[in-house]
């Protein structure tokens, strides 16, 4: 068990790295404050496809293709493809994977999917089960609205705590090549259910999960928040971020100024998006865009990604179940 630290954290001594990456976002994300950090901004969010589901699949395929191209790797040289998304039976990922003859591990972690993929990919590399792993995820505003809330056509008003699903896709290759940031630790979270039931305020439901994972990660590694230049939570949104700060403050954690939130920041204050962004692509494009650029340009040396996910389904909400939530933490170093 030499690769474990404390109760939950995994360490990757062999130094798997993110050696290639590609992010692609929709037009609304492209008007946000991090537009310059993304590799591609789509001019329209349909890509000429007949349905938004087809668009989401195409976005993921494009991200995968561009990542491979940048890495100068062909798909046959990959040992695994790990992908997930928000749709029923993760169909976006399954359909995208069907075009490649590479072993596919489909995962679901709602908006935490990307961190789950990153952690699993690093485990496969550390365990010498693979030399190159491709990870990817995608989400689309319209498909997620239809899946979890109401069809766009119904034109339902948004309320203040609602988050807007990010339209985007991201893919990355993890390998031992000599470039890109190292994945040093992964802390897979436990499912936390505080009994919250409001699907229009998922930030508040997810904050306790983020809190628990951060607490466990710091205890396992003996680090403080201040040991990280940035601690990026996935998509708690403005509401959830406020709650996480309260929880951390109450237990006397220091270095709260290092906290940032992908969901709160991906859109600007001037954009009408309720409490911010969410969706599987949110933390993925923010990490592979903004965070990796910061690491590459030495603006940050060590970063903790805490991707949160609300593990609800449209059915469980209607049946009055509470929302189980999860958060996975991944530590990246320059």
């Amino acid at each position, binding site marked *: 068990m030499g690769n474990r630290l404390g109760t939950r954290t995994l360490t990757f001594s062999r130094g798997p790295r993110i050696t290639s990456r590609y992010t692609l976002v929709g037009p609304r994300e492209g008007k946000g404050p991090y537009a310059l950090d993304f590799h591609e901004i789509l001019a329209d*969010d*349909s890509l000429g496809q007949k349905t*938004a589901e087809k668009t989401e699949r195409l976005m993921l395929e494009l991200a995968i293709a561009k990542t491979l191209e940048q890495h100068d790797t062909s798909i046959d040289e990959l040992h695994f493809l790990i992908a997930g998304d928000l749709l029923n039976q993760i169909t976006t990922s399954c359909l995208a994977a069907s075009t490649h003859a590479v072993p596919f591990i489909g995962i679901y972690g709602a908006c935490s999917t990307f961190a789950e993929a990153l952690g699993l990919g690093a485990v496969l590399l550390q365990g010498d089960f693979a030399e190159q792993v491709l990870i990817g995820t995608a989400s689309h505003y*319209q498909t997620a609205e239809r899946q979890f809330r109401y069809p*766009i*056509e*119904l*034109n*339902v*008003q948004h*309320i203040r705590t609602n988050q807007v699903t990010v339209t985007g896709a991201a893919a990355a290759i993890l390998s031992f090549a000599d470039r890109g940031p190292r994945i040093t630790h992964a802390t897979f979270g436990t499912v936390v259910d505080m009994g919250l039931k*409001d699907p*229009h305020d998922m930030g508040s439901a997810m904050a306790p999960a983020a809190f628990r994972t951060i607490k466990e990660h710091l205890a396992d590694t003996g680090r403080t928040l201040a040991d990280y230049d940035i601690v990026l939570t996935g998509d708690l949104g403005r509401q959830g971020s406020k709650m996480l700060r309260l929880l951390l403050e109450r237990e006397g954690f220091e270095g709260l100024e290092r906290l940032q939130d992908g969901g709160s920041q991906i859109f600007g204050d001037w954009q009408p998006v309720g409490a911010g962004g969410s969706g599987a692509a949110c933390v993925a494009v923010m990490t592979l865009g903004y965070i990796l650029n910061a690491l590459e340009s030495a603006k940050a040396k060590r970063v903790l990604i805490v991707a949160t996910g609300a593990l609800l389904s449209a059915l469980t909400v209607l049946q009055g179940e509470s929302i189980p939530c999860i958060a996975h933490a991944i530590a990246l170093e320059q």
Partner: protein
Amino acid sequence: MQYLIAFLVGGAICALAQLIFDTAKCSSAHILVGLTCLGAVLNGLGLYEPFQEFAGAGALVPVMGFGSSITTGMISEVKRLGWEGLFTGAFEITGLGLAAAVVFSSLLALSSKPHR
């Protein structure tokens, strides 16, 4: 003056519904059904008609007016047919509006694309 009253009353009903939507944890469907039922019940108690006379279109156009029309139709059909009127009366007056909604929205769905 009539126009002003209709505008203010109709607006007030909508503003109230918006207030409920914003503060209470309910969906637009809850509001829709709630107001329809409220209109039906008020009319059944004989309260909606005086209100309608006062506010005109302001009371008729919001969905509460639809609810009241259901009751009006039922009452008149019950008087004419007896208990069967409870079943035939609901759509006696509202049938026009419902059929028009179905026909025109079908036609529009054929000719235009929903907003993305």
